[in-house]
């Protein structure tokens, strides 16, 4: 009876959630309220957390609350500190949540909100949260060592090096695609460019303040910085309205690209306290604040979804990104459903601060559910916009034509009725010259957030402010990621090059640092530039590569967890990691293959190569190339992208090979072969016996 009543409440949550989900899924023809999606998502999260994560904690991994954690074993008050469960949850969530969960769902909305929503929910419960949780467990039981280290010790040195190379290339693609989002948002936008540019002097002032005026006072300097940011948004509006100032802050995509590349180099060789650290304070607090505000806003405003639940573009002909639902929807939404990058965080700072093994369930599984909820909110924000505006913002210029009239005509022909006036009025309402062809997610999300926030505060008069607030909040943490990522890439590169040229390894050598930084910036800068001049709009090329690489890393992490389960002699539970691994392998390998060999030049890189080569042979020029040199550049770019797809596929296949081998070796031995640090508590030994 007691067990029955214990589950009764959860059964109610389940029934309620199933009802909301059915309402969302089976609704045809009429608009529905965003709250249905929120209710369905939260119910799924609660049930998954209560039952599935508990099953993983107790049965699959047998968490041991009595076992000493590295935070106690190596307690130094600095890196290794036993930390309150909820405080550490905040730390972990702030570290995993970035631009990814905000962008992917926005791009995926071209197929309607339903496919994206179902994948976000299914993906997080079965794959994403499982990965974060289990990597955290594996790392905590091994003194908080990093993913690369763990792959090396559990699978062997060769897969370890392969994983390191793979991680470096993922980093490069992430930096390029993040920087591309900023370029797309700021091109031809004096308001946005001024506001984001102003964050640099604001951050430098904060850096000097925390270094010399009031050392270490993070709270007060963040308040000062926040006031500066608000002033920068208002000032940006003045700049955009001024005929003398506006042209000074109006740049093309290519100009912004060179500025970002220069910025990336300078910012990553400056001392960290001057620019990186203070901007990190702003971006972290603004990110958490904006996410909370968005959650409150959606519940409070309860907007109607204007996007159909499923659009005709599920056949793969969509303008935002090309390719059919399988595998490309599952590649487009990586963060929010399953993100391999989290395995680096789960094996980074968090495992060194776990106070008790039983806390890992909330921090690992729960933290990822929270990130998934951010993805759901981004999907909602993209779906409350008029579909006509959504497609005007996210389709490439080559498809839409140069004017609002041509864009409106093209989009109306797809069945999403929109007039040129609506497009120009929307641009004017948010204080921009144009909103056409701004793929990349950030501007679309900003329009959605501006609609929600302006209902709560300020009405339509405040739309421009809220739009640029949203742009600022995304650009801020993207720039932080670019800066921090370039530094991380530099260290990785110095490590790799150091094996051949020993002097490169010396991180105190000015020349070595500069060379490695320049190489790292040049690599991501190349992909960024390529994306900006890409005939299909950049996002169409780079975002799938990012998705493939990110989920490939997730597959690597889940293979590692599978090997550990086999070594623990718990192979009867291996399906927990094997099922998502198979799914991720199917998605990444199919997508990688199609990106290389698909005969449609919108999808396949090699098809695009031969399209341009054929044109060149006939002596023709294809847009956007204006001369033979640019034609050859596009050919080379696509060849490199095809090579990268191949590289990612080879990485994942070789790790799979080594993973299966390690599982087989562990399976043949009769006793556990794990190499964990520390000893199980007496209580758990008794339970095991």
């Amino acid at each position, binding site marked *: 009876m007691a067990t029955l009543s214990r589950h009764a409440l959860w059964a109610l949550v389940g029934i309620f959630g199933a009802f909301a989900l059915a309402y969302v899924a089976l609704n045809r023809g009429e608009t529905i309220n965003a709250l249905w999606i929120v209710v369905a998502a939260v119910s799924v999260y609660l049930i998954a957390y209560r039952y599935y994560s508990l099953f993983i904690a107790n049965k699959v991994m047998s968490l041991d609350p009595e076992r000493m954690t590295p935070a106690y074993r190596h307690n*130094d*008050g600095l*890196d290794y500190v036993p930390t*309150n469960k909820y405080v550490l949850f905040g730390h972990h969530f702030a570290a995993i949540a970035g631009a990814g969960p905000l962008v992917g769902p926005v791009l995926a909305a071209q197929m309607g909100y339903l496919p994206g929503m179902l994948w976000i929910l299914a993906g997080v419960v079965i794959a994403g949260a499982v990965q974060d949780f289990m990597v955290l467990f594996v790392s905590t039981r091994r003194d908080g060592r990093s993913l690369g280290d763990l792959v090396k010790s559990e699978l062997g040195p060769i897969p370890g090096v392969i994983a390191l190379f793979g991680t470096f290339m993922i980093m490069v693609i992430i930096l390029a695609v993040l920087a591309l989002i900023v370029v797309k948002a700021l091109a031809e936008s004096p308001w946005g460019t001024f506001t984001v540019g102003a964050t640099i002097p604001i951050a430098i002032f904060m850096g000097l303040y925390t270094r010399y005026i009031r050392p270490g006072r993070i*709270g007060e300097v963040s308040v000062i910085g926040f006031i500066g940011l608000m002033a920068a948004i208002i000032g940006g509006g003045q700049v955009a309205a001024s005929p003398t100032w506006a042209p000074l802050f109006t740049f093309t995509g290519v100009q912004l690209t060179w500025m970002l590349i220069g910025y990336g180099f300078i910012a990553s060789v400056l001392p960290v306290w001057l620019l990186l650290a203070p901007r990190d304070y702003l971006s*972290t607090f603004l990110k958490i604040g904006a996410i909370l505000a968005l959650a409150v806003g959606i519940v409070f405003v309860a907007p109607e979804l204007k996007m159909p639940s499923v659009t005709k573009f599920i056949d793969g002909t969509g303008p935002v990104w090309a390719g059919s639902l399988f595998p490309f929807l599952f590649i487009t939404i*990586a963060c929010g459903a399953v993100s391999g990058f989290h395995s680096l965080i789960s094996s980074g700072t968090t495992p060194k*601060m776990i106070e008790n093994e039983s806390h890992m369930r909330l921090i690992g599984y729960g933290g990822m559910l929270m990130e998934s909820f951010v993805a759901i909110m981004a999907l909602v924000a993209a779906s409350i916009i008029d579909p006509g505006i959504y497609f005007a913002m996210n389709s490439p210029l080559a498809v839409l034509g140069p004017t609002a009239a041509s864009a409106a005509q093209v989009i109306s022909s797809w069945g999403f009725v929109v007039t040129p006036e609506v497009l120009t009025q929307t641009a004017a309402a948010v204080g921009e010259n144009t909103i056409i062809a701004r793929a990349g997610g950030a501007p679309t999300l900003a329009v959605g957030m501006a609609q929600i926030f302006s209902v709560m505060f300020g009405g339509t008069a405040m739309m421009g402010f809220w739009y640029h607030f949203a742009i600022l909040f995304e650009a801020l943490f993207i720039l932080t990621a670019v800066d921090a990522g370039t530094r*991380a890439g530099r260290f*990785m590169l110095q490590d790799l090059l150091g094996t051949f040229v020993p002097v490169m390894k010396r991180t105190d050598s000015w020349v070595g640092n500069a060379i490695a930084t320049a190489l790292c910036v040049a690599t991501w800068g190349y992909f960024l530039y390529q994306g900006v001049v890409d005939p299909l709009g950049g996002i169409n090329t780079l975002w799938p590569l990012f998705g493939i690489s990110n989920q490939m890393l997730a597959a690597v992490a889940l293979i590692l967890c599978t090997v550990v389960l086999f070594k623990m002699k718990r192979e009867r539970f291996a399906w927990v990691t094997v099922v998502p691994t198979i799914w991720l392998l199917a998605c990444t390998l199919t997508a990688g293959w199609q990106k290389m060999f698909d005969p449609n030049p919108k999808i396949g890189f090699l098809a695009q190569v031969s399209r341009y080569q054929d044109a060149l042979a006939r002596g023709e020029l294809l847009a956007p190339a204006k001369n033979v040199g640019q034609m050859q550049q596009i050919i080379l770019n696509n060849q490199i992208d095809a090579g990268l797809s191949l590289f990612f596929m080879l990485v994942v296949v070789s790790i799979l090979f080594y993973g299966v081998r390690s599982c087989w070796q562990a399976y043949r031995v009769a006793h556990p072969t794990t190499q964990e640090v520390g000893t199980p508590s007496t209580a758990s030994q008794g339970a095991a016996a």
Partner: protein
Amino acid sequence: MFNDLSRLGKYLGQAARLMVGLPDYDTYVAHMKATHPDRPVMSYEAFFRERQEARYGGGTGRCC
């Protein structure tokens, strides 16, 4: 009631600082006093700089 509120405030402050990579200074001092009474304890300013360097200088990436 006021005790609970002040404890909540303390945890919120700790959480906010740890989000940007700064662990609790009092915990550090208590740890040093308890386990390494022979070693010098960093001042708050030195502790702040040491942690800043450790968070950003070491080169772990940020999430997407």
